[in-house]
């Protein structure tokens, strides 16, 4: 499974990643000019935090958001291991927001769903990594032998 890694020293705080994420993933028009006038406004899935730290969903090995979700809206794709929101069933209870260790799940009142990065699971390549001009974002393989209650988990992805 691949995850997006960040190099804060290369980040110039240009916000290209969240702009493109908002257009490509958040908006229905997929085009800047129209996306700007959309209502409700598109929500980007990546946020540049602090001064230079673009933060996405980390697709945790033991994902607290999946544990906390009361009706199975927060799911893990069995093929890719990516965590995503099944929007039609989200009841906007914000249980996932309450437990996300990185605070990246956005409770969107206007869309009435939890909004988070699914690492562009329906696309070939994550858009933020693609557009980052300084390569502060890269896609890398997840570390092996990671701990899961002290064990290396069996992965199908």
């Amino acid at each position: 499974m691949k995850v997006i890694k960040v190099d804060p020293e290369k980040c110039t705080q240009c916000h290209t990643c969240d702009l493109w994420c908002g257009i490509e993933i958040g908006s229905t028009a997929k085009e800047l000019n129209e996306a700007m006038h959309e209502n409700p406004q598109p929500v980007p899935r990546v946020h540049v935090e602090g001064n230079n730290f673009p933060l996405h969903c980390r697709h945790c090995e033991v994902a607290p958001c999946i544990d906390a979700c009361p009706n199975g809206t927060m799911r893990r794709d069995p093929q890719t291991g990516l965590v995503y929101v099944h929007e039609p069933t989200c009841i906007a209870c914000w249980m996932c927001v309450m437990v996300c260790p990185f605070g990246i799940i956005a409770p969107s009142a206007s869309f009435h769903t939890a909004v988070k990065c699914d690492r562009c699971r329906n696309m070939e390549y994550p858009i933020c990594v693609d557009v980052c001009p300084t390569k502060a974002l890269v896609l890398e393989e997840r570390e092996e032998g990671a701990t899961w209650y002290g064990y290396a988990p069996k992965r199908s992805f």
Partner: protein
Amino acid sequence: MRTNLPDIYVAGDVAETYDLSTGKMGVNAIWPCAFEQGRVAGLNMAGREAKYGGSFRMNSLDFYGLPVISMGITRIDGNGFQEFRRKTENIYRKLVLRDGCIVGAILVGEVQKAGILTTLLKKRVGVSDHIPLLLSSKINFADLLPLMKQNRERFTEVEYRELSQRPLASRT
């Protein structure tokens, strides 16, 4: 999770667990705790030694568009607690500390970063030096990275290690 009886394991609303916020044994009958306990109990029943870290109460509600999240001890009784509040027109935020660690919090209106507080409570990280940031609307994970670095032994999950392209220790 193993009970005091041989071959009896327990999880969920019937399980008395160590409460991380109060420091006493108690029942926290909520779904997220039950889920984690079920997994730990299952691992142990299957012969794999897994340890449960402890539970604490928490809940999230949306009152007709006003999101509210509360966790741990929210009403102080007794000594040794510190309380911090911030109130604006649309936002209310309260933190309860004991021995420099968060043991409870209430967030009203603005809840997006609530999970960071939950994690700090769960991992019992000393936060005395970061109170203004934790109370502000600008609270974010990146600004709390120094805190994470100081408590590296508590943040051992792979997600924290692979966050950055360089080891976190080399950053200033």
